[in-house]
């Protein structure tokens, strides 16, 4: 059985174990290693990607669930040589320490800002992605900054 899906705008066909989580297809087969492994049970969010435009934890999303869907990873968030406003805000607030969880944090933040362009403190606090370095205060600032950048883009 072959599963057709789109990854970062490119159509691809998958024929191996349909139970394989998207995370390991991305990392081991597509060699898109920006999406990270943290827990394998959908808890920590290091593997957050977008499927059909919504945040998903790739470590618990089997390939079988992706037929006909479009996957966006951190590598495909913005066209080459450019940055998504959320990435830009992350740089301006100097969020990253070790940086390992940040791709997942950014993908979760992009999803949040799509749903709630002007998120409240409670909306931001509801994000469950883990950061062992403790970058949460700067993540909060970066999300608010990104919200302003996106608003400026819209107007």
């Amino acid at each position, binding site marked *: 059985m072959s599963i057709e899906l789109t990854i970062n705008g490119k159509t691809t066909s998958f024929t191996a174990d349909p139970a394989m989580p998207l995370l390991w297809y991305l990392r081991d087969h597509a060699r898109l290693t920006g999406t990270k492994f943290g827990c394998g049970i959908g808890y*920590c969010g290091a593997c957050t990607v977008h499927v059909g435009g919504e945040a998903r934890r790739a470590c618990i999303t089997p390939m079988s669930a992706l037929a006909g869907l479009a996957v966006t990873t951190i590598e495909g968030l913005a066209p080459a040589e450019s940055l998504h406003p959320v990435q830009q805000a992350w740089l301006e607030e100097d969020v990253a320490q070790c*940086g390992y969880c940040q791709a997942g944090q950014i993908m979760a933040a992009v999803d949040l800002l799509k749903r709630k362009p002007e998120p409240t403190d409670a909306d931001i606090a509801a994000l469950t992605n883990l950061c062992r370095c*403790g*970058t*949460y205060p700067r993540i909060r600032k970066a999300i608010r900054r990104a919200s302003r950048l996106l608003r400026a883009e819209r107007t």
Partner: protein
Amino acid sequence: MRSLATLPLSRREFLQVSTTAAGGLAVSLFWPRQSAAAESMRPKLPPAANQPLGSFVRIEADGRIVIGARGCEIGQGVRTSLPMLIAEELDVPWSAVTVEQLDYSLLPGATASPPVARYGAQFAGGSTSIRDGWYELRQVGARARWLLIEAAGEEWHTPVERLHTRDGQVVHRDGRTLSYAQLARRAASLAAPTEDAPLKDKGAYHIIGHPTRVADGRDIVTGSARYGIDAAAPGALTALIARCPYFDGALARLDDSQARQVPGVRQILTIEGPKAGAPIDRNLAAGVAVLADDFWSARRGREALRIEWTPGPGAKDSSVALEQRALAALEGHGKVARQDGDFEAARRNAARVIECTYIEPFLAHATMEPPAALVDLRGKRALLIASLQSPGGASSLVSAMTGIARTDIDIQLPRSGGGFGRRLSNDYVAEAVLIAQKAGRPVKLLWTREDDLQNDFYRPFGVHRLTATLDAAGKVTGWAHRVAATARKYRAADLEDDPDWVGCVDPDGIPAGCVGNYLAEFLPVDFHLARGWWHAPLPTFAAFPVESFLDELALAAHQDPLALRLELLGTARELDYRDHGGPKVHTGRLVGVLREAARRIGYGRKLPPRHGIGLASHFTHGGYAAHAMEVAVSEAGELDVVRCVCAADVGLIVNPLGAEAQFMGATLSGLSAALNLQITVKDGRIEQSNFPDYPLLRMSGAPDVEVFLLDSPFPPTGAGEIGIPPAAPALVNAIFAATGKRLRRLPVGSQLKS
């Protein structure tokens, strides 16, 4: 600028700066070799087409300045801060600098034992990177700048006294300029200086002390930054290991027939664990390795293994039993780590004796990036790509296991997804080597989160009993700190010469030296878990009991907790401190951070009901930090950290933006552990397995951290770990102030709800 002494030049030479075994600065000259082996050992930085100025600096024809970052980047910011030191003295604008990670490297052909590190200290641990690099990396920049000035002097036939530098140019007194790019070729042909070049005055800094963002931040936010787990090599199989869950247990029976049927599984082999009771200097446990085409096949294969384990000697042990043993041990006598005056006499003469017992759990490091290692053994050479904190240790280990000379082992240093001391142990490297040797092919070993939480070198469990004696006026006359804990030396190979209380007892920690009758004592309690270094190891272990007890004493003596601390610390002076961060601890600097934290939070102000403010400070690895926290605890026991202030004195600040991040992160690491984290053992096995039962702090529980870095006349210490130790005691002191409930056991967990 005056001329410096140089060595006579016989051929093209590269400036080489490295640390001698004695710790001094040595300058040697490195001639690029022609042999293939030596060629591949050359630093990546100077390809022939460019214009090298020593191993750390390359100047591109387009004016770009490429600076090598030597340290292991584990989130502490050294890929930014160390190149800043070089760039400052090289006198180039930071905007013109491109940072490149240097590999771990030894001087080729060196026969010295231990071999000489090409770039000096590349180790990450103990908050030492900035302290180690502060002088020598500024010298790297200053000497490269000196060569450029000399080159301009030759170019213009002008004495160097008439020249200075500005923004990547040499400037003549008459206004002429030459860019570094124009001068680089000539400068690289000059003899390297053999004496120190003059360094800038602080007032002239335009990079050091200026907020600077993470050098490779763009790679991180676009997903192109490479971590150890991202490594790949042609022909490498992915390996997962099913490890014996019982410490010192062994493989009894293996049926791998089903695992071999899993598509993608290529090989299954066994590895031995450490010998029972022997030092743990390689891998932690016996196991069965499944080698496969990718992670998913390896995991499926591992799940299909049928294994019976023989439990080791600790099979019936538990943390509950350990706690009972520790409490029993405290009824006896231990090993005295420090004794001033006569504590027993102080006890006999005391008007009051206060005694409290505090309990701290085992902790796992839980780096976001689990351990992983790619090992390729190719005859007489080896390649290792992994997230590391001790590449020198990894180099020695690979060499000892394979017989390959250390100079023939290539070690790349990708970014690490956190460190916190976990990667000071290279057990996962040892595993990858064992598998690669047996499999006869390159191997990429991955760990799952379950593997990680159950196979760590844990922060020790400990029971602390603190006893203080007060005179009739409420003044502290004696202090005893007795610690029952699993000894640091337990099965450690490298600590024969250290007392076994190292890492458990901080004999010179404040208030040692501030109380006339003082006793520090260690009571070793055996347990089977491997012990390691956890994020400011000893200070974090010591600060919770000591700083909690100070508040309890203040209560008993009807004193304000801040006033009691200031009185104990007394006049500003230096006291001897033998552990890491010494040789001195300065009481005045602790007073400084305490006062600053108290001032910033508005200590003493009237608070709403069920709110409380707690304070704590600690000396850690040469730096000073204090926390002041305001918490609110609802009737139902819901805890809210309303405000969290951290004040620190870590000397001169190299990167204020990075240092602020380090103190925020350290504070939240301390809070995360204090609130919810513990590793427990039952029936000889770790009870926790993944984040749901080892719940790191999330966004919703993480307060903003107000960081105040003191203007300090002292040279820079590190920053990474200094902000952890006071966080837990400041939190429990605030909880007490809010509720009257004293928590003497970590983590806080659900204790407020009972």
